[in-house]
């Protein structure tokens, strides 16, 4: 997102391999996940990932709206990824723009690949993602939040769905871009992986990379996803090993 007034390109990588926030090339930002913060939703999760704050809620399996989308042999997965007007530097007009609609679609398809949809014919599993504070990587943070929310809702799935973005900054392949790296970097590659099989169910890419860089980026993304997966499992364990039902956001 551009900001008001011209900005110079910051130093994205120091000669000794430190990134703008001091991380190494293969390090994630701090991730904190709370499972089940919301009362009304069937399942929910709040994710703080670096300077991102994302809330996700899951409803269902429930009746399909609009009705004509209903499928007789399986559940459908619907997703709404939305950014709050105040989540970015320049106020965003409320509602879904084309970017949000595309992200909603690829996230829904990613989850459709892992939930046992045939268990719930003629229903809808509705996934809602609200970005409250954005700092690059919101679709991955949103997907992780939604995946924990799906588990919290008790939806049967092949596996949790960790996600992370890999990118290229100052010529280097790096893990988990933050905002400055996303704005001034050369490539961005968000992905979501099924940990059991190591297969990717979400993959997008923008920018330029060589074949070698792409190969390195994919390896790095797999490693990142495995780390995120641990955080997700921790959050769910924390939620279901305490006696206190309503954890706080």
């Amino acid at each position, binding site marked *: 997102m551009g*900001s*008001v*007034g011209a900005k110079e390109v910051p130093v994205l990588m120091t000669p000794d391999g430190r990134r703008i926030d001091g991380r190494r090339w293969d390090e994630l930002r701090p991730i904190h996940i709370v499972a089940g*913060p*919301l*009362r*009304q*939703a*069937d399942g929910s999760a709040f994710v703080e990932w670096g*300077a991102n*704050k994302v*809330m*996700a*809620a899951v*409803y269902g399996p*429930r009746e399909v*709206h609009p009705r004509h989308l209903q499928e007789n042999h399986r559940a459908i997965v619907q997703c*709404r990824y*939305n950014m*709050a*007007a*105040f*989540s*970015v*530097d*320049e*106020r965003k007009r*409320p509602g879904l723009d084309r970017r949000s609609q595309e992200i909603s679609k690829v996230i829904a398809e990613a989850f459709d690949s892992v939930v046992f949809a045939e268990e719930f014919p003629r229903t809808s599993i*509705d996934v*809602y*993602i*609200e970005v*409250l*504070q*954005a*700092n690059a990587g919101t679709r991955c943070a949103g997907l992780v939040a939604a995946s924990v929310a799906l588990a919290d809702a008790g939806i049967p799935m092949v596996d949790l769905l960790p996600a992370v973005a890999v990118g290229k900054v100052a010529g280097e392949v790096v893990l988990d871009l933050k905002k400055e790296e996303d704005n001034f970097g050369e490539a961005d590659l968000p992905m979501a992986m099924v940990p059991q099989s190591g297969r990717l169910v979400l993959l997008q890419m923008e920018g330029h990379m060589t074949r070698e860089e792409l190969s390195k980026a994919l390896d790095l993304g797999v490693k990142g996803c495995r780390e995120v997966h641990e955080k997700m499992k921790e959050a769910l364990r924390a939620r279901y090993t305490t006696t206190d039902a*309503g954890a*706080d*956001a």
Partner: protein
Amino acid sequence: MSGEVSAEILTTHLLDLASKGKRLDGRGIDEYRPIRIEPGFAANADGSAFVHLGDTKVLCGVKLELGKPFPDTPNAGVLTTNAELIPLSSPAFEPGPPTTTAIETSRVVDRAIRAAETIDLTQLCVTPGEKSWVCYVDVHVLDHSGNLIDAALLAAVAALAHATLPRKRFGVAETDLPLDVVHFPIECTFVRLGDALLVDPTFDEEKAAQGRITVATDETGRIVAMQKGLVGAFSPEDIKEVVERAFKHGDRMRALARGERP
């Protein structure tokens, strides 16, 4: 939470409890749920506040941008309030254009902010007729467990009270300035269950309610806005009663909204 089948039974039960001066969650008739405010929750906003009202959760973010004043008020800035009842917050909300509930909530909150002259709009004027600040107050409902109006206004006022005019970002001046909040409106909502007037209704109490009434007061002792909602009726005595109770609760909640700058 309750399915439609059990709604009738629940309503009967809530009415029965109310007739004995009791509520399902153990509160008194004139008792709010616990309130917690987290100012500065959304760092990309120029002011924000996360409000927990029992299980109800709302987040308000304030954004300030430079724009043009309206032709009929060349010396004033622009203030816009919008409440989003997003489908994440309740099984009852669906994606799509705002429902009448969302529009009502949004407008009742906006009315209190405007009528109380919460912000001195002339303060937002930069060059008369040419340039002024546009102040967007966006309320995001995250968990709808009842009484969205009170929670939304509380979040809006708290967010405004902690907001900054981003003068540096827009190249208007060398330093930022805290936004000056002149008045602190607070809305208190009551529902009727039989003869009882319950403050701060939960989601189930709202569903069972035989009328809803909201009273907005400010710290100078003015009533700045009112709204009767849902099917039901209130006598003039009822209105006088809830106004008194609204002032009492308002003073306590105002102190919470003002808080300290984080």
